[in-house]
């Protein structure tokens, strides 16, 4: 076999990785063992193979000892395979004459018995040597990169990434699920620790997105389908209709005023249901795009068909309510008598004719080379912790509700009052870590809650002058001038009680608690259980991945970590990359983080995309499958197995693999009944050698 590639001269390099490997594996012994194996000409152990001197070692040996195969036993190939391929190439060899052995992540770091770990390393090295002997010289194929970029999610992460790319002259498609971009940041009042107004710093960027010639903004839209591969993704986007044409709408909002509902009466999502909106509405004044939405569920115009559906369901007995006794609001019942809507909005729009109730969803097919996912987070649902009384006691709020409450443009115009709409709270309890660091809900720390709780404490004090109690487990303020902000709060007379609140309850123990919500908590600094009555309770809810994160992940063929956040390629060295080339992560969809970190990561993601675009092409691992024509019998077994339809059946009864479409999974190869389908880098004979190698001492 070896002869096929000429006389084989193997060089073996065992890396100590400082003490990371050498601490458990006897690298010297491994190198010595390898030295005694057939074909091995040079065998060394060295402190840091990935360092320059380490790589030079390889290069020089190749020239000096005429090596034509290289085995490097070090860390995971996912980390340094590329490094050592380059080193091999620098020595004048084809980089695919190098093979790596993972003796760190999968040996020294997971084992404790020195002898066993060393034996394992030797076995793996032996197998690699036998394998490398058979390896073929290969060339990477180049795939061109489409310069257009898709950014999914229009929060601060998506906005910043989109603008960065657009400013670099690349065309960006920004797709946002909601009716407006801005995400959670648009809901915030002030931002910690500087307390500058979120809107003031965000809305200019939002308008910039709208105005930018290189950005196509599709809000109120969903990505439905993603095909292709790095550099060449085909994406289908569904643009849900607003029943108002963005191109014709001038954003005058007269239609909203003109709605038959003189008073807004439907829960306003943007304000966390604290405010009301009409069926035709703009989420918030500075929304981008400035085009209102007509909400099917609440607009009268769309309720006629509903009525019909309802009646038919009645006749089918699907509905148990006796006739006449209407289960819908009297308001709807009246409408049914009165028939369809007067469509005052249409009149208001006049000859702009932007409003059209017949509009349908639009499907857009786009081609992009890279994709940035910035789909953000969802706040923890406080109802999941019943003993904190959210949804039961009216005056228990979530932090996001408070953000809207204290916001000047919020439902209460900045007036912080209880749900009764008039009482100003005199005492407020802020509970940290709701849905974070909690065995019963989410184990992780959401990173921002301590700081935003401090911020809210400050703002609430500012707005109400109330007594404010922060209940925290640990105060976590890592970040530029975060700790200083904490100190500032301490001096502002806000109370801090270290302890996990047991419950929020209305049962009265002593008259002072009458009419209040009492927080029962063990003050771990005093070592006593305390009852603290307050008027208002704020739950600092943590961050979670979106509940549809799994679907999104599958859509883009990336992985989720167990917490439901998207998984980065490497926790330290590739924090914005995914395991799917050309798809990057930005913001909280990858894990909880604050605005500065999010923006930084968005910039990084944009840079990664630019790097690909500027290179103009990406090199693909040459690991695709190929047919040995003269031996293929045209049995077609392989054809249906390829998920990418890369295999076609030729006139002359032979299968053929399209190397561009082939992703190199090798599923067809394993199935080929005559072994005439092979996979580069994972040829049958190479794998057989490796199997024999790990088991059979040479």
């Amino acid at each position, binding site marked *: 076999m070896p002869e096929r590639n000429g006389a084989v001269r193997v060089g073996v390099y065992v890396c100590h990785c400082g003490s990371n490997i050498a601490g458990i594996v006897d690298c010297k012994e491994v190198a010595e063992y390898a030295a005694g194996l057939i074909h091995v000409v040079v065998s060394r152990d060295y402190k840091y193979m990935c360092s320059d001197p380490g790589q030079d070692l390889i290069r020089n040996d190749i020239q000096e000892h005429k090596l034509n195969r290289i085995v490097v036993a070090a860390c995971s190939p996912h980390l340094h395979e590329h490094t050592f391929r380059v080193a091999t190439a620098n020595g004048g060899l084809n980089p695919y004459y190098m093979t790596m052995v993972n003796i760190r992540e999968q040996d020294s770091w*997971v084992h404790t018995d020195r002898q066993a770990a060393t034996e394992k390393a030797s076995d793996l090295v032996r197998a690699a040597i036998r394998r490398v002997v058979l390896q073929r010289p290969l060339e990477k194929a180049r795939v061109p990169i489409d310069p257009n970029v898709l950014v999914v999610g229009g929060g601060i992460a998506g906005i910043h990434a989109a603008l960065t790319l657009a400013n670099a002259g690349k065309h960006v498609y920004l797709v946002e699920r909601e009716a407006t971009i801005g995400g959670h940041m648009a809901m915030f009042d002030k931002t910690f620790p500087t307390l500058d107004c979120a809107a003031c710093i965000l809305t200019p960027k939002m308008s910039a997105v709208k105005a930018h010639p290189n950005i196509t903004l599709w809000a109120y839209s969903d990505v439905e389908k993603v095909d292709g591969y790095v550099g060449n993704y085909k994406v289908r986007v569904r643009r849900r209709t607003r029943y108002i044409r963005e191109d014709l709408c001038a954003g005058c909002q007269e239609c909203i005023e003109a709605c038959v509902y003189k008073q807004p009466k439907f829960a306003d999502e943007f304000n966390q249901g604290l405010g009301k909106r009409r069926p035709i509405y703009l989420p918030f004044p500075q929304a981008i795009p400035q085009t209102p939405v007509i909400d099917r569920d609440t607009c009268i115009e769309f309720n006629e068909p509903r009525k019909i559906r309802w009646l038919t369901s009645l006749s089918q007995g699907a509905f148990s309510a006796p006739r006449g006794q209407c289960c819908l609001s009297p308001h709807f019942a009246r409408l049914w008598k009165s028939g369809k809507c007067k469509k005052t909005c249409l009149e208001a729009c006049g000859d702009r004719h932007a409003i059209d109730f017949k509009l349908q969803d639009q499907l857009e097919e786009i081609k992009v080379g890279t994709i940035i996912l910035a789909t953000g987070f969802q706040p923890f649902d406080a109802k999941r912790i019943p003993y904190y009384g959210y949804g039961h006691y009216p005056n228990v709020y979530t932090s996001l509700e408070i953000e809207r409450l204290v916001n000047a443009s919020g439902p209460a115009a900045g007036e912080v009052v209880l749900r009764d709409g008039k009482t100003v709270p005199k005492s407020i309890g802020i509970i940290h870590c709701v849905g974070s660091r909690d065995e019963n809900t989410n184990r992780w720390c959401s990173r921002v809650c301590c700081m935003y709780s401090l911020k809210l404490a400050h703002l609430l004090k500012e707005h109400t002058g109330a007594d404010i109690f922060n209940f925290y487990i640990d105060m976590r303020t890592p970040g530029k001038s975060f700790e200083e902000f904490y100190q500032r709060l301490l001096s502002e007379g806000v109370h801090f009680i270290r302890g996990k609140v047991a419950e929020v309850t209305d049962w009265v123990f002593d008259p002072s608690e009458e009419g209040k919500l009492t927080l029962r908590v063990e003050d771990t600094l005093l070592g006593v259980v305390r009852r603290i009555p307050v008027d208002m309770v704020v739950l600092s809810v943590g961050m979670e991945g979106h509940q549809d994160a799994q679907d999104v992940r599958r859509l883009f063929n990336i992985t989720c970590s167990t917490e439901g956040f998207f998984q980065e390629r490497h*926790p330290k060295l590739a924090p914005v990359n995914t395991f799917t080339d050309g798809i990057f992560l930005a913001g909280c969809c990858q894990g909880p983080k604050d605005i500065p970190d999010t923006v930084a990561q968005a910039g990084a993601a944009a840079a990664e995309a630019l790097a690909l675009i500027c290179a103009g092409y990406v090199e693909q691992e040459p690991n695709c499958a190929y047919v040995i024509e003269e031996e293929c019998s045209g049995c077609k077994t392989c054809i249906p197995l390829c998920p990418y339809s890369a295999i076609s059946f030729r006139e002359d009864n032979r299968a053929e693999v399209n190397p561009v479409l082939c992703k190199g999974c090798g599923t067809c190869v394993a199935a080929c009944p005559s072994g005439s389908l092979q996979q580069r880098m994972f040829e049958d004979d190479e794998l057989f050698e490796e*199997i024999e190698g790990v088991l059979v001492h040479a």
Partner: protein
Amino acid sequence: MLETVKEAKNQEATAFEPRIVAFFCNWCTYLAADLAGTSRMKYPPNARVIRVMCSGRLDPQFILKAFADGADGVLIGGCHPGDCHYQEGNYKCLRRFHLLKRVVKEMGIEDGRFRLEWISASEGDRLRTVMIDMVEKVRALGPLHWNAPVEEVAVS
């Protein structure tokens, strides 16, 4: 060859340490193994991992070869159903696994020696658990050492 036989012999002499060949897919289970490493989880050193791009690449010949060459157990690790990096490779693996499992069993290799586990890139802990469990189960089953020569005495 003889080497292994000798070794097999004195392995039995001393405490039996199962030899396990593990075929891990590049995108899920191999990464889980890396993650277990970066998280410094500890598990027994009996497995020798062979990396393939996808569990769908696994030709039954590889598994048979591993047993024939003296593996006491073979572990296949792939992405969870629906999570395959190549969309469906793991299903193809699943199909072959179930048929091959019957063959292997009929040839006298106990169930516990041949396993297919779905371990995603984030399940380093699960990888550890599976490794420990597999080693223990195979240890309990004792040596297989298929390649140890069988004495042929041709008298009735």
